[in-house]
């Protein structure tokens, strides 16, 4: 199944998909990596709404071009580093996470019918940048350009593989279980 999803994406939209499906996203995504996760969770009033939001695990390469920002490359970063904070982020209403490399078993459980994880090929900074139309805003700029939250307008961002669905399935977990079994044979 391949579909185009427009943000905001609701839990009931997420539930239609299962591992192996392919989606494209149009609308608004927020980049967030290590420091932004900690910051968002300790912020009593984050500067943007997390309800039905799409978080993109990315530390984009962005330059300031006069009054505007120009995206040079913006592929995903390793999602596993954000595993610890993610259940709390999901609780705040995030329904969609884009990243690479997968996340922990606790994160898979926390998705319970309201969030899914979409994989973009790692290292593909230019492919990703080509689907970003505009930098709409920047939050927590004091964290520096790499760690800040960038509000990006994207169009047909993808192809994104549903790699962890909202029903408890994770491609990474099944692959890792089978590779561990091969190792112990």
């Amino acid at each position: 199944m391949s579909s185009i999803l427009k943000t905001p994406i609701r839990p009931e939209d997420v539930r239609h998909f299962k591992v192996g499906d392919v989606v494209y996203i149009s609308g608004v995504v927020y980049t967030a990596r290590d420091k932004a996760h900690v910051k968002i969770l300790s912020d009593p009033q984050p500067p943007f709404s997390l309800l039905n939001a799409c978080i993109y695990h990315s530390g984009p390469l962005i330059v300031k071009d006069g009054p505007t920002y120009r995206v040079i490359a913006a592929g995903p970063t390793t999602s596993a580093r954000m595993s610890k904070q993610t259940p709390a982020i999901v609780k705040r209403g995030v329904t969609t996470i884009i990243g690479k490399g997968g996340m922990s078993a606790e994160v898979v459980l926390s998705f319970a019918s309201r969030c899914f994880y979409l994989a973009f090929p790692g290292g593909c900074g230019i492919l990703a940048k080509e689907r970003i139309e505009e930098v709409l805003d920047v939050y927590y700029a004091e964290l520096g350009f790499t760690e800040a939250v960038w509000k990006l307008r994207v169009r047909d961002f993808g192809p994104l593989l549903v790699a962890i669905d909202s029903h408890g399935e994770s491609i990474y977990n099944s692959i890792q279980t089978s590779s561990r079994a091969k190792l112990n044979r």
Partner: protein
Amino acid sequence: MTHTSIKEAFIRHTIDALREAETQLPSDVTKALARAAKAETSELAKEQLSAILENAKLAAAAGLPMCQDTGIPIFSLEIGRETSIDFNLKEALATAIQQATNLIPLREHAVDPITRVSSKEPLFDTLYSICDGDELSVTVLVKGAGSENVSALAMLEPTQDVTSFVLNTVCESGGKPCPPIIVGLGIGSTFDGSARLAKKTLFRSLDEKENTFEAHMLEQINNLGIGPMGLGGRTTALRVFVEKAPCHTAMLPVAVAIQCWADRKARFRIKL
């Protein structure tokens, strides 16, 4: 050439090498990825590999970094014994990185390790070796954090098995280092010596003929089925490099340096 102009030429060459590494995936890597894409039977794995190849093509055409993680520049400096270097090499490398940051551009992701506040000091590493001749040969490898983070070192007991430590390391790293990876093994020497051996192997060409041990390790890694991006498939690694050195009879240091598919290298030589 005068003292200043040699230093300036060195800085210019270094910036050019950084640009080449960031924007053009070396042909040995491209060839290995294309071979892997052909050999894969999993559709998902094929798609990941073709996205990687397409991204590399676009980056080269645009002259822009292929990955937003523009990495840690690691310089391998082979210094000819007849050269005389009358400028501060480290300072020149730092200047080159600072200038390249604006010119290429590079991402500013260097931080103080304790305060985690942005570091003004540039981030890079150097490996030195002495060789014959009157040239300085420089190879730069820009290495991303995703693969550096899953690299590992173990002080094994002499009766323990090297292979199972390596396979375990690769297995547990799963999709995190952006597979297909290149695995550099440093076996023997000392604690830090093994890590340097492992890192040094990553400067070798994928076209180099592999020995029996390397081929055997590669086969076993690829049998794990982790595949491109950890989504399953035959291609977990493109190549295994092994470098060994004698060690104390009571020791068995093993270092596993993992490199992502974006094995970004470039080199230049300068007569000094």
